[in-house]
């Protein structure tokens, strides 16, 4: 038994990918610069060296080509894990994702499985230029036939990527890039992970429920701390799965607290918050003391990075929304 390591999210994903490749030799990695370079974020670091060029495949620079060939690989019995270099570059592959990846199982009445994982570093806050800080989750979650998950921390990164790869349906796997090399957490490789498509209460509370995922989980937790110092006890739920949604813990929480705020980096308009608000309102109508409030990016394109911190939801804006739910 090895001692538990303290790892970053990048490391957790790297270890998880390695484990998945060791466990099943049908698992392949594909993408731009995933081989020798180990990816621009180094998530696949060392894997081509150890598993060879046939299993860690540097592709021509064409995202539709990457996802389209992954579909063919899946039809041949492989389990391709595709890396999209940055969120903003997934769109050339959008057609293959929504018309092929998402639909093949349905089209074949379940005869064909599509065990493809599409990894997307997502979200902002890294001071990048245009197209490098997008949050495209709703554009996938709205599409039946895709599953969409977002990890928020190193330990989840390690487990969730393995679970997604082992899963027989296509999974859009969102990785909060700003967290890749941020915080470390202790990984116990002998633990039993929670199932993939479940949400988790990451901070129990009584006064209001804050829903978050990916990069905003950290924001929500900080917000809860700040609120605590003001005497307000917030419950924070890390959604982890965006499609399907795991609403049971959310409903349970909101029925107790009566107040709910959702926060994500995606645009508010038609973002995940819209769906969550609609469902929570429908299910917890009589428990709600205030409407579900949403804190996300404005409905403007991602701005030049010098003002991105004012564009993204932060502790203050989430707290402000919590305050507003108490004003109802």
């Amino acid at each position, binding site marked *: 038994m090895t001692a538990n390591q303290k790892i970053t999210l990048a490391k957790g994903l790297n270890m998880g990918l390695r484990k998945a490749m060791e466990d099943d030799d049908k698992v392949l990695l594909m993408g731009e610069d995933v081989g020798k370079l180990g990816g621009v974020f180094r998530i696949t670091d060392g894997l081509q060296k150890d598993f060879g060029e046939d299993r860690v495949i540097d592709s021509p620079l064409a995202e539709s080509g990457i996802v389209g060939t*992954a579909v*063919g690989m899946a039809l*041949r019995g492989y389990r391709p894990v595709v890396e999209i270099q940055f969120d903003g570059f997934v769109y050339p592959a959008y057609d293959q994702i929504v018309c092929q990846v998402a639909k093949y199982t349905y089209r074949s009445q379940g005869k064909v499985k599509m065990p493809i994982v599409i990894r997307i570093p997502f979200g902002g806050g890294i001071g990048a230029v245009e197209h490098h800080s997008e949050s495209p989750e709703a554009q996938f979650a709205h599409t039946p036939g895709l599953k969409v998950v977002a990890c928020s921390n190193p330990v989840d990164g390690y487990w969730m990527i393995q679970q997604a790869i082992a899963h027989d349906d296509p999974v859009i796997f969102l990785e909060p890039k700003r967290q890749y090399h941020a915080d470390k957490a202790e990984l116990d490789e002998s633990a039993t992970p929670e199932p993939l498509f479940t949400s988790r209460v990451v901070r129990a509370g009584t006064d209001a429920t804050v829903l978050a995922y990916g990069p905003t989980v950290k924001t929500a937790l900080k917000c809860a701390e700040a609120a605590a110092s003001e005497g307000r006890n917030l419950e924070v739920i890390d959604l982890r799965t965006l499609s399907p949604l795991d609403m049971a813990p959310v409903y349970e929480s909101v029925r107790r607290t009566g107040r709910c705020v959702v926060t994500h980096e995606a645009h508010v308009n038609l973002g995940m918050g819209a769906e969550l608000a609609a469902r929570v309102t429908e299910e917890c109508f009589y428990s709600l003391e205030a409407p579900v409030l949403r804190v996300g990016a404005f409905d403007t394109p991602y701005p030049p990075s010098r003002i991105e911190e004012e564009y993204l939801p932060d502790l203050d804006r989430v707290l402000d929304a919590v305050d507003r739910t108490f004003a109802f």
Partner: protein
Amino acid sequence: MSEHGSFGPDLAEVFGPSHADGGPDLVQLLTPEGERVHHPEFDHDFSAEELRGLYRDMVLTRRIDVEATALQRHGELGIWAQLLGQEAAQIGAGRALRPQDYVFPTYREHGVAYCKGVDPLRLLGLFRGVDQGGWDPAENNFGLYTIVIGAQTLHATGYAMGMQRDGVVGTGDPERDSAVIAHFGDGASSQGDVNEAFIFAASYNAPVVFFCQNNQWAISEPIERQTRIPLHKRALGFGFPGIRVDGNDVLATYAVTKAALQRAREGNGPSFVEAYTYRMGAHTTTDDPTRYRLNDELEHWKLKDPIERLKVYLRRNGLVDQEFFDDLDVEAKELGHHLREGCKALPDPKPLDQFGYVFSEMTDEIAAQRDEFAAYLASFEGSTTGGGH
């Protein structure tokens, strides 16, 4: 030509324009008049048995098409994509395949499906609206029809890359060595996906044959809109060979496709086959080609009918007798009957079943929608109108 430097001669002058009827590059083994000619590079010694087989395949394929077209006229199908005139291209390609080879079709590959052993009745489901492809791709190595044009060429390339990883390419064992064929149309050749497939296939030397039926039209758009030189030349720029074959000549199509597949199986990489043919019918049963093309053109192509020319050859060379034609007629009629009766008997999908196919296992979320819908439907039971209002 500019005075500022030469870019060489106009490529349309070198290669001829895109629509040039045949041209020096066209591989042909059987002329429209039913004369057997030979080609220095691509040929094949066809036995009488083989020739009769190819004829039979084309006749039955046309029968499938005629029956399905009639079924659409009678309201049994919502739409049908006709292949009239493309029988040779499809049977030539389809018969060149080995069982281990995998096919990625468009929505029009009825003849190839037939060669692969897919019951033609299965093809009707999609057009009737009872399913979206009623066969199991793994059973006959025949993928589902793909409607988004060009998308399947990437799947084909990925599948071929999978074959490489499975060690079934270039082993020297003919029972083992495998290849993929990707079908698409002249119009589809303009899609980014098709060009990306060329790039991936070339880059990885994948065992895939890009088989394009250039039927001269993409709905109302002529081939000139997609390319200004003969389409098979497209492959050159990607670094693999392109061949134009007379797609109304089943012998030549067979010989060329077989060679291309063999090349792929042996590990020599992708190639592009342009089957130069003609869509004699409408794009689909909802299309009206008189709006955009002249009857003369159709008449011109009728003289090149793929079935007629083989019939002439078989007759002239005494390879068939009346019994052969009579038997084939019976067989075709039976096939017609099978399709007509089978089509009407195709079960409608059950609304509640559909919820079960979205994922490998039904999610709670979808189960809840199904249950709610089931309860809703049940609420009408006993009501006379079948609906509350």
